């Protein structure tokens, strides 16, 4: 049986301070994550790191409120769509390069996407798009993995009971 002190399941022993601080923190963490994703071009960071940070905000939420409450506020279906959306964005950008150049350019040759008139700037923008794609996928996947790892069968009953409240 799981020991009590590592039990993240039921959210027993909730603390008002932790909850309040979490409520305050989560938006800032997410903002920071977005910053990291966007700022990847200029400084350290990028889609991957940003995605993980974004996911960590959900992790924090779970830690503070318990998996049941978090699970109820978390749409799995949307998450799975996000799973794919990110990678779609990435691979799609790659394919667009081929399409827009009528087969002259290679996969992921961003310069050929006609976002601006400048070849090099196209590259930079293409990279940004790709980073966003990575960010979305990583965020969705890390969140999903974490939720799946934490979620226990017993929680379902509790979840149903709380849902009735």
């Amino acid at each position, binding site marked *: 049986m*799981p020991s009590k002190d590592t039990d*993240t*399941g039921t959210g027993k022993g909730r603390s008002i301070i932790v909850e309040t601080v979490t409520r305050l923190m989560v938006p800032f963490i997410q903002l920071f994550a977005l910053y990291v994703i966007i700022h990847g071009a200029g400084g350290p960071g990028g889609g991957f*790191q940003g995605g*993980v*940070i974004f996911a960590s905000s959900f992790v924090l939420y779970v830690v503070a409120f318990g998996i049941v409450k978090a699970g109820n506020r978390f749409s799995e279906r949307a998450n799975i769509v996000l799973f794919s959306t990110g990678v779609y964005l990435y691979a799609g950008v790659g394919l667009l390069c081929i399409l827009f150049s009528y087969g002259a350019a290679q996969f992921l040759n961003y310069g050929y996407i006609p976002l601006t008139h400048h070849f090099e700037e196209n590259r930079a923008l293409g990279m940004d798009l790709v980073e966003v794609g990575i960010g979305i996928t990583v965020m969705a996947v890390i969140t999903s993995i*974490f939720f799946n*790892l934490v979620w226990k069968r017993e929680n379902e009953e509790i979840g149903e009971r709380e849902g009735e409240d």
Partner: protein
Amino acid sequence: MIFELDLVLLFLVVIIAIVAITTRDLLSAIMLLCAYSFLMAVVWVEMHSVDVAFTEAAVGAGATTAFLIAALSRTKRWEKK
């Protein structure tokens, strides 16, 4: 690269790694792994690879630890023997 700091950090990393695999309390092993990753990230910052260090801090010390603890919450905390 600050050579003395580097050396001290690396020795610390080795010690933490050894303790992490020998301790019987899995929770502390996981926390030690977290510390290990974090120190490693510091070492890498110190080796001018900020991006990798950032990632390691976010993933190694963050996501991996979260996963491990999540898994631990559904299994056992103490190692047998």
